[in-house]
């Protein structure tokens, strides 16, 4: 399986830097963004991104708003929310809005890896299903003619 393309969005620069190192060491390709806007822009350029790891609490455009925008623009990209304890409610809200899962900071690396893998797999499955559906559609259209 191709290594997942992950984007990490958090306003804490040192946190992002260290996480990038650790995730890359685990064979992930990591994109970074420090604000919601930056993340959306970057996603526009990298439409093949599999998973976004999104901090809920950010200055300016916060995690929830960013999530809404991502889901609107890129419905297939899976999002894992990253939260402090105080924002569990917003994480839950995020899940209602279509986030794949949430994790609490500081998070266990193994857990994070598991979630990313699961999310990537789900995304791939979705893509597969969409492909299949398109093929079926094409076939049926063909069959009718």
């Amino acid at each position: 399986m191709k290594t997942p393309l992950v984007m990490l969005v958090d306003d804490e620069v040192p946190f992002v830097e260290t996480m990038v190192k650790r995730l890359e060491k685990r064979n992930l390709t990591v994109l970074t963004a420090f604000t919601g806007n930056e993340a959306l822009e970057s996603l526009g350029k990298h439409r093949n991104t599999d998973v976004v790891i999104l901090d809920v609490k950010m200055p300016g455009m916060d995690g929830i708003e960013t999530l809404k925008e991502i889901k609107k623009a890129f419905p297939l990209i899976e999002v894992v929310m990253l939260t402090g304890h105080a924002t569990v409610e917003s994480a839950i809200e995020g899940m209602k809005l279509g986030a794949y899962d949430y994790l609490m900071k500081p998070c266990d690396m193994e857990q994070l890896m598991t979630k990313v893998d699961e999310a990537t797999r789900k995304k791939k499955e979705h893509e597969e299903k969409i492909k299949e559906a398109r093929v079926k559609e094409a076939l049926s259209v063909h069959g009718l003619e």
Partner: protein
Amino acid sequence: MDKSKETKTTDYPAFFRKRIFIIIAVSITPMILVSGIILYQFNRSYHEKVHAHLAELVLKHKQNIDGFLVEKLGNIRVLAKTFSFEELSDESFLRDRLEMLQRGYGPVFVDLGVINSQGLQVAYAGPFKLGKALYSTAGWFETAIKNEYVISDVFLGLRGLPHFIVTVRDNWKGESWIIRATIDFVAFNNLVGNIRVGETGFAFIMNREGELQTKPLFDVMPDKGPYLEFMKTKLKEKDDVQIVERKDAFGNKNIYVAAFLKGGDWLLVYQQRASDAFSDFRRALRVAFAIIILGGLAITSMAYLLSTRMAYRVARMDKERQMMDEQIVETGKLASVGELAAGIAHEINNPVAIMVEEAGWIEDLLEEEDFKEGKNLDEFERALKQIRTQGKRCKDITYKLLSFARKTDSRIQEVHLNDMLEELVAISAQRARYSNVTINTNFQSNLPLLEVSQSELQQVFLNLINNALDAMEKTGGKLEMSSKVEGDYVVVGVADNGPGIAKANLSRIFDPFFTTKQVGKGTGLGLSICYGIIKKMGGEIEVRSTVDVGTTFYVRIPLAKEKEKEEVVATT
């Protein structure tokens, strides 16, 4: 809980006294004013009435007596004019005349006498042996010879008995002569003596010299009292009646009513004790006073009762308000501390996350071949593990802080309290065994279901049990858990026989961050969170502790009431 702050001292006794005073003043003043005015008016009109009545009485008798005297005088004058000196000088004729008079007017006339100008009684008819008596030296004779007719004062005379006489002068052959009639003193006395009113009212007659002319019913001292003043008064009108009220020699207040008789020679005096004359008024006065005193007593006792009740109520309300103030302060304090805690937790959480990640990164790097042979590899690994452990501890603390700050609402559900407590006891059993603590339970069976958040309640009791176990960690001991229904509450008791809580600390144990545990062992948030949770449920948490005897926490949880249940979205 044990947070008895110094109570604001309100001066309740002063408040109480003021109340009483106001109520009494407001109620009694009008009562006294109204009664006073009415009594005063009544007194005046009653006096006037009594005076008028007595004046009428005296006037009537004055006319009566004057009439009597004039009539008797008239009788004798008729006698003198009708018969001559010669005829009347005949004693048998005179006796016939006396008999005739006595037959016509009753035994008023005692005797008759005819006296010549020398004062010699030439004829006499009557019961006494007074024939040929010589009156030339008698006081009355001189007056009688000078005046056409005279009614004398009372005197003893030759017979030695009090009496008075009526004389009429006439001429015969150029010589004056006098016919004299003695009036029966008893008959006359009765005219006056019959004037009796009440118990002390009586009348008598005195002349201008202050000598008594009739026998008064009671002792009278003519030289004392107002009698002589009456004498001095000039008679303005014939029917003038004088009334005065004053104290007599014995200190009794009397009413004196006086009128002149006999053209001003005599004074008819009526006197009566004021207390007797106004006895009706006095009685009314006594009743009025009794009513005022009884009313006053009733008002005073009512004022006392009402004020006591009011003071009590005010005191209780003050106390309640004070307690509420304290609770508000407490809640406010906890809330502000909560916000602060949330802020701190957030601020700390991020750096801690970074630190833990950095440690994780170093761990990742240590996996690489280059470091495998490093001689300090073990030390590195130990240090990193420690960093991770301590990072986790920081995380725990911030989580607790946040849960304290955010009031972790959980779904409200029906809770079997006893089952829940049993579970908690089971969970704690292992730890208790290590600490050499035995846990006893004494639960009231058939407790009603509670409608609360189970997880919150678990948190509270777990906290209390853990605290108790911590307290008895070194010494071992007994932990007693109990539950029972008390009124609208279920009371759960958690009692240990550990070292107890020092008095100075007792009031602070619910304060956030207050802990007596070693640094790093406790956050000081446990009881504070418990307090917040129980208060939110509408319950109470209370602690009683004696040093070296033990500590008991009582948690009172309200029984479910008929109210709409708020569905709170579960978190976590």
